């Protein structure tokens, strides 16, 4: 579903992503971990078409994200860490706009919007202007809009930030259900407990490179430790962590 080959992305003289090779299979929940500035968000921004790789190629569902950006985005849904909503549109109007952007026929758009409103419990506020929404309400609406066109791949950047425990539970259930039904999820997170709980595979990034790629069990095996993912992560990225605190 995601094919990243030798991708490099630089910001001036700084290399944010360095010769990254990654393949995420269809029906997999992949969690991308790493400290701040490790290259996770840059990787996601390239996947959704906001940035273009300096070198290498990146494909989503077989479509190149640079030369076939629109085809690629048609097959993916994106939930950013800081979502944008039109303040002067209601939730329903926003969903209608997104449905048109993704080329959904009117009848399918209408039933899909009703379904998302039901699934995400938006009924109580979907006809109010987005300017009055709380962070949790906004996050639910953004999830609904990302799933409106039923994408094969869901890309989520820090999905748990600012959510209460109930909403976190709901997001975890949603991601698991999505994968169980054949979808693919690429998630970037600092919430290691969530990654440990729901991810099929994790990738630990550091200085733009993948330091580890595999399951949590494989990581334990590699580090010969039975610790939690949090401890394993800290051990793996010890050097960077040390330099930050000092």
């Amino acid at each position, binding site marked *: 579903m995601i094919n990243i080959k030798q991708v490099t992305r630089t910001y*001036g003289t700084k290399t944010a992503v360095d010769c990254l090779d990654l393949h995420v299979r269809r029906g997999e929940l992949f969690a991308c971990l790493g400290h701040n500035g490790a290259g996770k968000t840059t990787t996601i921004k390239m996947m959704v078409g906001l940035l*273009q790789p300096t070198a290498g190629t990146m494909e989503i569902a077989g479509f190149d994200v640079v030369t076939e950006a629109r085809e690629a*985005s048609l097959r993916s849904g994106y939930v950013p860490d800081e979502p944008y909503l039109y303040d*002067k549109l209601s939730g329903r109007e926003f969903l209608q706009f997104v449905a048109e*952007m993704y080329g959904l026929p009117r009848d399918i758009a209408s039933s899909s919007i009703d379904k998302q409103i039901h699934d995400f419990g938006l009924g109580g506020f979907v006809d109010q202007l987005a300017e009055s929404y709380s962070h949790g309400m906004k996050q639910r609406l953004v999830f609904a809009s990302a799933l409106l066109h039923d994408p094969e791949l869901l890309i989520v950047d820090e999905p748990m930030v600012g959510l209460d425990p109930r909403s976190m539970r709901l997001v975890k259930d949603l991601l698991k259900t999505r994968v169980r039904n054949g979808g693919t999820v690429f998630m970037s997170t600092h919430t290691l407990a969530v990654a440990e709980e729901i991810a099929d595979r994790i990738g630990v990034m550091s200085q733009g490179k993948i330091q580890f790629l595999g399951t949590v069990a494989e990581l334990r095996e590699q580090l010969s430790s039975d610790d939690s993912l949090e401890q394993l992560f800290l051990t793996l990225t010890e050097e960077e962590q040390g330099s930050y605190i000092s």
Partner: protein
Amino acid sequence: MATAEIQLEAPATKQLPSTGSEARAFWMLRARRLNTMTSHALRSMRVQLVSISVASLVMWLGLYILFQQGFQFIHTGLIHAGMRTQFVHAIFNVFFLALTVMLMFSSAIIMYGNLFKTEEVRFLLTTPSRPERIVIHKFHEAVFFSCWGFVLLGSPMLIAYGDTALSPWYYYVLLIPFMLAFVLIPAAIGAIACLLVVRLLPTVRLHALVILAGLVIAAGVYFGWHVLAYQNRNLMTMTWFNDVLTRLEYSEQRLLPSWWLSTGLLEAAHPSPSTTGRPAWRESFYFLAVLASNALLLQLILAMVASRCFRVSYSELQGITRTTRNRRVSWIDRGVGLVCRPLPATLRMFVIKDLRLFRRDPMQWSQFAIFTSLLLLYFFNVRRFDYAGTLEQWVTVISFLNVAVVGLILSTFTTRFIFPMISLEGRRFWVLGTAPIKRDLVLWGKFWFACVGTIPPCSLLVLASDISLKIATRLPLVAAIHQLTCWVLCIGLAAMAVGFGARLPNLREPSPSKIAAGFGGTLNLVLSALYIMAVVLLTAVPCFFWTEKAWLSQIHPSASIIFGGTIGLGTPGAVILGVSLMLLLAAIATIVPLRIGIRAFRRLEF
């Protein structure tokens, strides 16, 4: 949120939206947002709406009367109809050419902010929208923002001309399509330039912008100088008109959209058959078609450029290495620190912080540059009315007029740059609100920032005007009153912008230009204009009667009771009274808004 069974659609059934449905979606988006904002404004902002409408109407009527009088003056001054039309054509050409340059520049700046700095575009780029659709969507937004100013300034002039020339009804009907087609041309050129500069010169885009701005200002000053440097004393004679027309020839290039617009409008304004033998209205439609087709062609070119380079430009711009600031304090900050030495250290830091934020934001200082160039251009004009000229008796009036112009342009500065500062500070209040400082200091910082930034340049401009008009040597007391008036204006306008900015903040809007264009900004602008008029009149009237008493007694001996005697308007006592009243008004205009602002800011919840 129910985790219902999800059936993923087969990939083959997914289809990209057609161009038509994409366009419809964006139009629907715009219509819905406009509808929501209009109904919200009608429901909860009635007072603001009425105030803005009344202020706009008053301004429109004022401009209409001014232009109407001007055209009437030309009408009576120039008996020969052909010469009259030629002269008006030249005026229109220059006006629309100046507008073309300003619209190009402002469109490029607005488009840069709209395309590369907004959250909306970041969101849209992650959807399957075509990049050219996103650019056109933001382009129409920029045109709308540029257009309303043009309509407000241009329509009274054009309608006044139509009334003076007794134009047929279709002249008025054609005004809107002409203006709309015209605005699109410079706006599209500016937008294309913006995309190309970011694409081709991403690392030096700011330098490119500075060079472009420099060239535009230099060209404006050159043409202004070229036209205004003419010193013929025999005003309103045929020789003078011919000379002025020769000097304005540069604006008559047949490839300029400004020429198409002025020619098309004048053809519609005059019902007599044109030189080509075709009816005037047909000639007018021909020019409208030329304007519209060029506007549409440029929009197509913009879409083509956008489809090729917008995504890659956006990506490249994110890849620019951020400038690392020198740890040492810059010479500007050291200079400001020196000027503000008498202020407490915290206040000084606020002033320096605001200056840093201002000069590192190209959107802010580029618009500042446009205002400054307009002010400078005006002051080149001062040379035209030198002391040795035929208008010697009116030198005092002209000198006070210069002070009023400085004040009026200053009020646009304070409304555009100082008024939004409090609203913008509100968004960063987590750092100020939790610091162990008094909230009042934030406002005092803005106030001193405005005073330090405006008093020296305004004072120098007024001094330059007084030297040019020989007021400084001939009437030093009047020159001193000018300086006092200028300081009073700077302090009062700064206090009003800061005070009203704190009383009527807009904490949701991140764009300073949109904050300034809102109700609070408009109210501040209107009150500032009233304050300037009152302050200048209080000093200008007694000073004029006092300095020109002898001349006035000669031409109006019967009216000497008004300005003569021991209690007349032309006595030193009247001047002292005028200055005292001005100081009293200035004290009120400074203290009251600041107190209102400080009280509101203390209560403000973020």
